[in-house]
């Protein structure tokens, strides 16, 4: 059993499709400065740093050293962690491991991406197997689309059902001053948007954003002195499978990595009825169907019940378990930071600092990361020191 750990400060940049005004390092510094200010600390208080973004994206290797001017990591213990779409969550979990180990008291976790400086689709194609998959694979959209076709076939879900998720998240983004896309989008708008890869239309999929996010993590005894209401880690689970699609997908079983990671997380947190005991969720939903299907894999409802659960309003603001008060990935997607934004937004909810996007009386918040060929991370944060 490691030490207890809490998030005591979060920072994020504003998000846009293009930030030509700054380099990546300068953008990282904006998020780090905001997180340190939130925790009322200086960089001298930080003992170690974990940072990550997407491999191959901006063609910048060794981002731990590349970014030191932005991260504040000059001559500090700093490591890069890069796990595809899950990167931001894995970075946060690695920072958690750092503090839980007892070796470091205050650790900074950073995720970032300048999608505008990358050929996103080309870079994502290079995540697939060079010999077997790369020839037919065409980036994130069609692999997600295959999951949607299998789900529609199995449970009869419709494109309109999925569009409700896009409408919900884009509507929530209006309450988040940091969100990239802050215009409402209706089911009708999504249905009328161009078909990119059947059944995914432009309105069903996340944007490409520039942005960065940072979290300050602190150990038990230190955390209480920094934050009035620390967001305590109750659970952190990582389940990563293959980059070979043929092995990572089994549509009869569902998103197995998410099922396994959430089961592990609930065990760590002592949660037996997720939909009753979790008050808010920030889920890495890169496309609308995920908002129907993956809540089944996370156990908010049973297999095939996602459409009913969402249509009954359970996941909307004011519902039983609001999903993505921030507007989620469909509103903001700076990929290496995207999964960390889920963790940071969950922390914001636990700390009660959500402003217009705050869900009342949050005790437990769940965050997920999703990566490439269907792998998953799950984090549970709480007002309650475990």
């Amino acid at each position, binding site marked *: 059993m490691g030490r207890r750990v809490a998030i005591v400060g979060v920072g994020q940049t504003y998000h846009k499709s293009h930030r030509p005004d700054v380099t990546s390092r300068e953008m990282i510094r904006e998020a780090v400065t905001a997180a340190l200010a939130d925790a009322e600390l200086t960089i001298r208080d930080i003992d170690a740093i974990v940072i990550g973004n997407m491999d191959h994206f901006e063609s910048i290797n060794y981002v731990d050293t590349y970014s030191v001017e932005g991260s504040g990591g000059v001559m500090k213990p700093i490591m890069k962690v890069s796990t595809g779409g899950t990167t931001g969550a894995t970075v946060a979990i690695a920072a958690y491991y750092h503090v839980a180990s007892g070796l470091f008291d205050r650790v900074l976790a950073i995720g970032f991406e300048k999608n505008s400086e990358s050929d996103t689709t080309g870079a994502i194609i290079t995540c697939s197997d060079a010999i077997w998959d790369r020839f037919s694979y065409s980036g994130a959209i069609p692999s997600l689309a295959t999951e949607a*076709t299998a789900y529609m076939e199995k449970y009869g879900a419709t494109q309109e059902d999925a569009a409700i998720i896009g409408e919900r998240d884009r509507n929530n983004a209006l309450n988040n001053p940091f969100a990239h896309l802050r215009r409402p989008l209706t089911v009708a708008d999504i249905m009328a948007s161009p078909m990119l890869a059947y059944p995914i239309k432009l309105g069903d999929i996340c944007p490409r954003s520039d942005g960065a996010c940072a979290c300050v993590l602190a150990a038990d005894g230190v955390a209480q002195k920094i934050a009035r209401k620390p967001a305590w880690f109750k659970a952190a689970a990582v389940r990563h499978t293959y980059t070979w699609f043929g*092995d990572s997908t089994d549509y009869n079983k569902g998103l197995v990595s998410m099922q396994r990671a959430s089961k592990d997380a609930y065990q760590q947190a002592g949660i037996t009825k997720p939909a009753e005991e979790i008050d808010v969720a920030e889920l890495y939903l890169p496309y609308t169907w995920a908002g129907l299907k993956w809540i089944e894999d996370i156990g908010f409802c049973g297999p095939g019940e996602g459409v009913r659960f969402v249509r009954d309003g359970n996941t909307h603001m004011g519902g039983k378990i609001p999903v993505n008060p921030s507007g989620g990935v469909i509103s903001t997607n700076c990929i290496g930071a995207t999964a960390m934004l889920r963790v940071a937004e969950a922390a914001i909810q636990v700390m009660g600092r959500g402003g217009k996007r705050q869900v009342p009386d949050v005790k437990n918040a769940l965050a997920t990361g999703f990566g490439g060929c269907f792998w998953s991370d799950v984090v549970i944060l709480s007002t309650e020191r475990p």
Partner: protein
Amino acid sequence: MAHQVESERLVSVFAYPMPYEWSIGLYGSKFFQEIKQNRRFVGIRCNGCGKVYVPPRRVCGPCFQELAELVALSDTGVITAFSVVNYPFIDPNTGARRPIPYTYGYIKLDGADNIFSHIINETDLSKIKVGMKVRAIFKDTAEMQGNIQDIKYFDIVA
């Protein structure tokens, strides 16, 4: 390196090809040789869990043990999922735009337990459905190069 002026701020551009060479491995090589010689697929069975993998590889991930029992398969399978790709993008394999639309498919080859991804020769959404049977269409033997494109695509047969 070229430079473009964007108001007062400069942008640095890189636009050169970066070639690589990847080993296909012993069983992966056998997969392509089987296509060339017998115009069918070959998989490999794990003695630990009984799963048949295609393409064949040396290790079963969950069991973490060596595999050795090659299994001859046919050239047919079933669509488990698909998508019709309809947006333009630069293919990092070639540096050129990949022709669209095309149908990306996940196929459960008959006799295998995992899924094989390739192209399905049907972009009309009214003519393709999950569960349909497909057959591999191979290149002429003389044109085969021992890579994934020795399979031209899969045709829907029912």
